[in-house]
């Protein structure tokens, strides 16, 4: 039999006179190259941190491939990342081992029918797969042990699972677990984004009058689509003029989202810009300017990036997705987010994804019959060993190199596998020690959320929406769920609202300590990382007790929460609000107030108010530059208006300001949690799901288990566009769901995550700084690539 790559490693270990020594040494010195490809990396970080302490096993995290001998592939490998994975694997010295962790790396997990992902086992030989979404740190350690045992030469080349009999309830209940609802796709849906709705909104009516006067002759129609939402329809040739008017006379200064909607049966694309301004009255309002263009091979529209720079990257992204040319945007040549070999224009409706169907197999009641994504590179080779590196694609930057050479600059390609880059690539042009320009190359974790969401039931999208950012899952869910609730006009029970607020704030605290754990690492300060993750571990503990899951609870559903939480968990949460200060103080002393750190952050990466608004940055980072915009204040949702707290703003706009602002913010969060817990404790238990949505299944109002698909399977949203903005940990997350009123799947879901908006801010803030400062700026923005790439 031919020797496989995997056997070769073991043979190397088992040959020569020193075999036992060799085996022993390799076993105890598995240094992983942390290949943090996507969200599972969060749990890997926990494994490395003080809660689980991977170093106990001699497993020292080493970012450099030449010196490591073990890859842990954390989750999804996209087409763009495939080449990086292969290169890293090739760079490592023999013998080397590969563990793939997370469901994504095996059969695609939740992203199984995405157009952009591959299976790691097609690219490198894999020793062990560790299941879970995300994996728990325990199972990750178990994976390390499995490799150690393999090196020892023990026979268990795989982890064996016992066959477990699923508890069989009565027949009806058993069926209730099945997602039996067939998906309904309306064949020729009526897609409208300006369906008018009666809203009790006097200011809006005035504003429409005002707008009509201002935009005389430029608009086709102006509609109030909801409270705080106005849609302006215009002709493509008037788009620029309309926008300029809005910007000049109304003070509209930033773009919240750019969207393209493909309507093939009407032969048109709709292009919409959601804009708003940071003036007091305009803050909660979102104006949607939209227009329709013909659906030709190369549709064209004038770009608004020169007017509102914050639209720039989103336009480039949509160019990738739909092939729409935004004239005037300089990035229309190559691909931006997608890999060079991803199918063209994947978000057009005629690009179809695979559908899942469920089979009833022996013993296992519901097996989704899915075909795992199989990556076939352009050449005829079928397995990794025949792969040529050239078959895997990653963008090259020939012109940048040429230009830099002309200007006598030094260019470094940083990432996507780099100890301090996360999973995206930066092309850094520097002159001496000064950064001239940084060109981002995102998309290494682009998993086509938006396309997948168009192919799943509304309720099936709830777990999907939290995957981009599992360090802040609740807020991601909340945004999506609120858009649905708003569309259906559901009132959420008060108790549920309070619990949602508690969880959202806990999630914010968790995300802060995630970022503040990565930040010290970038500064070379591992103690800060450990302390920070120790605090995060406390938050996760609470999450587990509330929801049963560390990072991916999917606990918030339209109309409420999955089930009520018990009193002792509330007690624990109450205790947490005081206990956290003790650890926080230690953390502050060792890290935040560290003189070296302060000297590195102060007056570095400054964004003035104007610059910050121009780049379109959001969230605490925008507030650090002096804009008092917090969605929780501007457009209060849940119970934020009933609690006593303050939004934090600063005016320095440097790295220090961003960090201190967020630190203040989570102190406020702790206060919010405390107040909310006190309030919940005084309420009667039960009734956490709105009766309106439950319909005939009122019995499920405490606990949705067993009824989920009955209640939610056939959810259909009314026709129109439903936009929600939510203050997530790193800024405003915007969901805009377009429903045709007939299908039980969304027609289009647009997700704008804070990190995606902040990308431009990072670039602007780091220009002209010193090379080492790039990492300070980068980390101060808490950039989380899976969230940005979606």
């Amino acid at each position, binding site marked *: 039999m031919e020797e496989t790559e995997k056997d070769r490693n073991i043979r190397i270990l088992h040959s020569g006179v020193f075999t036992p020594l060799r085996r*022993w040494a390799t076993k105890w*010195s598995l240094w992983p190259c942390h290949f943090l490809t996507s969200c599972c990396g969060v749990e890997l970080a926990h494994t490395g941190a*003080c809660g689980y302490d991977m*170093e106990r096993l001699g497993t020292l995290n080493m970012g450099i491939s030449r010196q490591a*001998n073990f890859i842990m592939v954390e989750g999804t490998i996209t087409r763009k990342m495939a080449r990086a994975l292969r290169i890293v694997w090739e760079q490592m010295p023999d013998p080397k081992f590969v563990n793939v962790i997370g469901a994504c790396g095996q059969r695609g997990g939740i992203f199984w029918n995405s157009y952009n992902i591959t299976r790691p086992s097609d690219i490198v030989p894999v020793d062990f797969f560790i299941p879970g979404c995300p994996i728990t740190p325990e199972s990750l350690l178990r994976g390390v042990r499995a490799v150690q045992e393999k090196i020892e030469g023990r026979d268990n080349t795989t982890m064996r699972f016992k066959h477990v009999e699923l508890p069989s309830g009565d027949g009806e209940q058993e069926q209730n677990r099945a997602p039996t609802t067939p998906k309904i796709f309306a064949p020729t849906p009526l897609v409208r984004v300006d369906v008018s709705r009666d809203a009790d909104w006097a200011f809006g009516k005035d504003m429409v009058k005002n707008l009509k006067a201002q935009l005389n002759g430029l608009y086709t129609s102006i509609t109030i689509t909801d409270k705080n939402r106005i849609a302006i329809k215009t002709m493509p040739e008037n788009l620029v003029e309309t926008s300029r008017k809005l910007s000049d006379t109304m003070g509209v200064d930033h773009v919240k989202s750019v969207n393209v909607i493909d309507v093939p049966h009407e032969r048109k694309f709709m292009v919409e810009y959601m804009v708003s301004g940071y003036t007091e009255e305009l803050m909660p309002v979102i104006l949607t300017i939209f227009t329709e263009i013909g659906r030709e091979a190369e549709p064209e529209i004038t770009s608004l990036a020169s007017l509102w720079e914050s639209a720039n990257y989103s336009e480039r992204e949509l160019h990738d997705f739909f092939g729409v040319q935004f004239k005037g945007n300089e990035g229309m040549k190559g691909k931006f987010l997608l890999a060079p070999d991803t199918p063209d224009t994947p978000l057009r409706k005629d690009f179809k994804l695979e559908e899942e169907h469920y089979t009833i197999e022996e013993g296992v009641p519901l097996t989704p019959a899915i075909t795992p994504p199989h990556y076939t590179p352009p050449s005829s080779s079928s397995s990794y060993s025949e792969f040529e590196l050239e078959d895997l694609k990653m963008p090259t930057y020939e012109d940048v190199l040429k230009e830099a050479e002309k200007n006598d600059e030094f260019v470094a390609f940083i990432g996507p596998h780099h100890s301090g880059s996360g999973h995206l690539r930066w092309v850094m042009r520097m002159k001496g020690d000064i950064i001239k320009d940084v060109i981002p190359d995102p998309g290494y974790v682009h998993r086509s959320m938006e396309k997948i969401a168009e192919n799943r039931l509304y309720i099936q999208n709830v777990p999907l929406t939290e995957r981009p950012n599992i360090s802040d899952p609740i807020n991601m869910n909340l945004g999506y769920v609120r858009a649905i609730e708003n569309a259906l006009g559901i009132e959420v029970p008060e108790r549920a609202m309070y619990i949602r607020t508690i969880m959202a704030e806990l999630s914010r605290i968790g995300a802060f300590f995630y970022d503040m754990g990565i930040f010290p690492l*970038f*500064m070379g300060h591992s103690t800060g990382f450990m302390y920070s993750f120790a605090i995060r571990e406390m938050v996760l503990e609470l999450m587990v007790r509330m929801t049963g899951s560390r990072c991916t609870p999917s606990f918030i559903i339209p109309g409420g929460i999955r089930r009520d939480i018990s009193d002792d968990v509330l007690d624990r949460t109450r205790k947490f609000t005081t206990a956290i200060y003790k650890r926080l103080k230690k953390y502050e002393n060792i890290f935040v107030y560290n003189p070296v750190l302060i000297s590195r952050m102060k007056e570095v990466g400054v964004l003035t108010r104007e610059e910050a608004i121009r780049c379109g940055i959001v969230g605490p980072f925008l507030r650090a530059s002096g804009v008092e915009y917090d969605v929780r204040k501007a457009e209060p949702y849940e119970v934020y208006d009933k609690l006593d707290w303050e939004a934090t703003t600063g005016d320095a706009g440097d790295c220090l300001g961003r960090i201190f602002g967020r630190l203040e913010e989570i102190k406020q969060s702790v206060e919010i949690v405390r107040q909310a817990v006190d309030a919940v404790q005084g309420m009667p238990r039960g009734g956490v799901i709105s009766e309106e949505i439950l319909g005939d299944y009122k019995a499920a109002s405490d606990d949705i288990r067993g009824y989920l698909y009955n209640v939610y399977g056939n959810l259909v949203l009314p026709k129109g566009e439903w936009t929600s903005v939510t203050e997530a940990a790193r800024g405003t997350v915007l969901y805009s769901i377009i429903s045709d009123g007939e299908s039980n799947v969304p027609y289009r879901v647009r997700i704008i995550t804070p990190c995606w908006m902040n990308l431009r801010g990072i670039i602007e803030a780091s220009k002209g700084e010193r090379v080492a400062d790039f990492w300070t700026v980068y980390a101060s923005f808490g950039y989380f690539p899976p969230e940005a790439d979606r």
Partner: protein
Amino acid sequence: MTEMINTLMETVMSNQVSIPLIEPMLDSLPEIPMLQYMVAFMLWKPLFALLICPGLTVGGITLLFFPWIERKLCGRAQWRVGPHEIVWWLGGVIQLLADSLRFLFQEVIVHKDAHRPYFLQFPFLSFMIFLLPLLFIPAGTIVAIQTPYAIQIILALVCLFPLFILGLGWASNSRFAYIGTVREAFMYFAYEIPFIMAVIAMIILYKTSDPLLMASRQSIPGIILNPVAALVFFIGAAMATGRMPFEIPDSDQELCAGPHVEYSGIAFGLIYVLCYEKGYILSALMTILFLGGGSGPAIAGLGELSGVFWFVVKTYLVLTTLYMLRAVYPRYRLDQGLKLGWSPMLCLALIGLAISLVEVGVMAI
């Protein structure tokens, strides 16, 4: 012939490490023929210094176990345990053995763009050069080569180190290695002058540059006589070893370990211990210059070994402090590091010099 052996034996016997504790044992040795000579040779001071302390044995132990101590201590500071499972009843003390053996058996990759001969030579060469200062460093009263210019020679050798790091980076021919190398060069100039000045201050103070004499002239340890010079020396040592606030050339998160990003296998293994080697030598130097070398309360029965004991203890103390900086400080930026070297440290070094001169003057009066 016999005469030659006799003279040789005479030199050897006249310069023996005296250890009262094992003397009775030594007396009984002549009954076994060759062993007597071998033991005599071992206890011959220069050879003892070379092979045992501060030379190969203690040096080797430092390289093998000190990283473990560092990892363990950092672990404690960071609310975790550090290496543990490998021999759990000893707290994973042989972790570094496993690591180094693994490196030894691993493939050494020389990539296409590297300058092959230099790429392979430099790790080994620098490992050797880094060992040389040990010849001149006395442990207590035991030293391999005694010269009145020992400190100058040690300094010269220490200042050679960065050249080898530059060589490593240059031979790697990689972008990150290039940036790292340039940074190393910059840092080298920043710390070198104050560092040397601090040493000169001590030479002036003790009026000698023979380490043995220096140690004996420290009835009050140098760190009290001239704390400023001690501070400058310590910061300089942290910069020279690239420890945390100054881990600028090989900053892991920025430059993927800078000059040695391309090294793998045993070549990297050697580079990995290089910085511990450097740390060991500089700590030893600090012990001699500022902490009174091997002086300390004599321990009964150990004889001259008691000096060795105190020397090792003090060196480890300095080494640990140096390495625990990592748990407390993040990294400076290059320009901040340079500024620190060129202005405050230079000033402090001048003050240190002045203090020494004043003290020498006062003592002369």
